[in-house]
């Protein structure tokens, strides 16, 4: 091949190869040079598409919750946390090999993992000594005798501005005069005293270890030789008890509270939306018929999840990972309409038309707070749940 021809051949091929990168994206010039019309968007509130709704109570008891709440300062409501600990051992680890008998008890330290609180200054939680034998099924009022001044053994001061941290109280050994008679077993209660309404919420053993109780002791490491050591116990049972809230209006929907309540909603969106459109956002609008109840300053987090089947109260939830749940915060005392994001549920239903179209609204951490919302149902005129949906009707590529 001659050199000139060779250059033409190679040059032509090289230019062809080098030009292979595509760049076709350009600003649309609508409507004249927009390809096939515009993407339409409909944002509307649908009335009457909630076909049925109801609430059931009793899913999670406070002793199974991951948080426990202490509420005080409000004569109309209150909550106390109670922890039962296993017995401390007679011996404590001297080192990694040997143990030694406890010869002297110095003090205790109670560590509480704070997860939420009222932002009032000078918040303090009072620690009470309870007989270990007290009935673990006791309610708020039956525990009154154990939350008198005479039972106070310490105070956990929560620094202002601290909302989630570990807070502690030192309790002297003599605060438990019957420690030995009680077989070295302890039960503690938490309360908030004073006249300022306040609350504090702590982790329970269902979240992690719960409220750890440490013991500072001297032990006999060897005959005539004592050393200081500490050991600790985690609660073997913890819960909180609260005052009863007022009875709900008949027919209302309830979410939250203790034990926890859930609301079931059957949704029947028009086929033109469910079958043919793309839902880009959907909210279940729930209208409170009473101000959200609970500790002043507390907040509920509501989530919605789809049901796997319709078996009434025991219908299985298709559980969503917490990271993908869209939470709706509701402040205690609010009467604002509660928009619960159900976009993901709608997408799930659109992807699986055979699924039962029922969703459940619950609190994110059930029975972890006494807070509760009560909303209108399909049976309460003017307060019926609504669906606000934003969707794209079928897009036509050929008009």
């Amino acid at each position, binding site marked *: 091949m*001659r050199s000139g021809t060779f250059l033409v051949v190679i040059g032509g091929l090289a230019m062809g190869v080098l*030009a292979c990168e595509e760049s*076709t*994206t350009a*600003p649309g*010039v609508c409507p004249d040079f927009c390809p096939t019309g515009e993407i339409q968007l409909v944002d509307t509130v649908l009335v009457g598409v909630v076909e049925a709704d109801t609430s059931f109570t009793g899913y999670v008891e406070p002793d199974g919750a991951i948080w426990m709440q202490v509420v005080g300062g409000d004569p109309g409501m209150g909550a106390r946390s109670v922890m039962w600990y296993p017995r401390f051992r007679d011996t404590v680890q001297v080192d990694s090999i040997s143990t030694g008998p406890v010869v002297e008890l110095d003090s205790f330290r109670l560590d509480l993992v704070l997860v939420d609180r009222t932002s009032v200054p000078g918040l303090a939680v009072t620690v009470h000594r309870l007989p270990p034998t007290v009935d673990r099924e006791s309610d708020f009022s039956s525990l009154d005798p154990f939350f008198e001044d005479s039972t106070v053994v310490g105070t956990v001061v929560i620094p202002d501005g601290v909302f989630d941290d570990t807070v502690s109280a030192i309790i002297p050994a003599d605060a438990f005069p019957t420690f030995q008679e009680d077989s070295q077993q302890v039960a503690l209660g938490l309360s908030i005293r004073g006249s300022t309404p306040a609350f504090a919420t702590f982790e329970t053993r269902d979240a992690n270890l719960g409220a750890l109780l440490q013991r500072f002791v001297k032990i006999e490491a060897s005959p005539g030789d004592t050393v200081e050591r500490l050991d600790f116990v985690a609660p073997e049972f913890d819960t909180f008890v609260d005052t009863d809230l007022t009875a709900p209006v008949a027919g209302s929907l309830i979410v939250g509270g203790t034990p926890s309540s859930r609301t079931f909603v059957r949704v029947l969106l028009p086929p033109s939306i469910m079958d043919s459109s793309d839902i880009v956002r959907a909210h279940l609008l729930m209208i409170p018929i009473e101000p959200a109840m609970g500790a002043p300053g507390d907040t509920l987090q509501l989530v919605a999840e789809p049901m796997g089947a319709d078996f009434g109260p025991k219908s299985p939830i298709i559980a969503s990972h917490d990271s993908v749940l869209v939470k709706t915060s509701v402040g205690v005392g609010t009467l604002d309409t509660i928009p619960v994001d159900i976009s993901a549920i709608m997408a799930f239903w659109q992807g699986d038309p055979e699924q039962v179209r029922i969703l459940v609204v619950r609190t994110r951490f059930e029975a972890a707070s006494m807070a509760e919302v009560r909303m209108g149902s399909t049976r309460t005129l003017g307060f019926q749940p609504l669906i606000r949906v934003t969707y794209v009707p079928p897009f036509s590529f050929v008009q």
Partner: protein
Amino acid sequence: MTTRIVLVGVLAMLSPAALHAQNSIYGTRGIGFPGRPTSVRSLALGGGADMFDRGASLNPALAGTFRQVTVSVMSATTFRQFTANGVDASGLRETRFPMAFLGGGFRRSNLSYQLSVSTYAERTFDAQTTDTVILSGVPMQVQDQVSADGGVVDLRAAFGYTPSAKFAIGAAYHRLVGSSRFSATRTFESVEFQPFQEDDALRYSGNGFSAGVLWMPNPTVGFAFSGRLNSSLTGELDDQSTVDVGLPVSLSGGAWIGLGTQMHLTTTARWRSWSRGRDDLASTGTRAFDTWEVGSGLEIGSLVEGGLRFPIRFGVRYAQLPYSPNDDQPTEWNFAVGTGAPFAANRAVIDLALQRFTREGAGASEQGWYFAVGITVTPIQ
């Protein structure tokens, strides 16, 4: 034999999806931007040789000129920019394989054939728009993207007969196939809104028939005529819904004038009745017009024995475009240059063409360059 198999394989590998021609903002309307059934050589001649160059698939009579198996492929890249309604876009670039053919003769007869694939219409675009919508009383910025990739491909089986060295006739069956893969997306400023995306594919089908003659009464002059009839083009979406668009009748004529042994002038004119699809497209706000295309080119030198090694080609072309969003019919001017060179012991030819195009009308203007390279191989001579 091995070379022949390889070349046929290369031709076969050029799937219809890859066979689209240059793109244009005017391709967002109707069935897309009309393709040109031209070769690289004829492209450099402004399309003037479309009726005489057997690499172009406009005149089926040229199928009668094949005596040996011949394979040709073409690659082309468009660099373009446009302005429309105050919107400027530049740096747009697409590469396509708009034409390929396989031709050959039947032994001891004057009958020969040509199988070709070419672009009938290009339907590729990717348009982004930004808008603000009011949702629950709150302004929300959204970004839309509507794109299509594909087009209508013309599969042609042509047969030609050459009763004498001066005359050839031919006829061809055309099968229109291909598809455009559409996608529409909308994303929202707020993550509370799920992005919208819808995809679909529009599959095209249609038929056509063409016939043509080539008459070269003496070595200095030649004439060619062809005509083509098409059925409606049917587009079918994934959901089975269909749309029909009337396709044009096409009438073409050309003249070839030899200006000595090393120079000739060619001209091709074509009329197409795109308005047959007017009623079908009315609902989209698209106006359809009949079109005239006229191209002329001058070639100095040739690749035949004794010719210049690198012939020089010039061409100019004027064309009306069929679709518009209003009553203003867009037009196009092309200015082209090119050359070619044989290699592989004259069994192969590479052709190059560079075309400058400007399009105007309907509230937009578009300019750009179109670079094409083609390789034609005759493995056995």
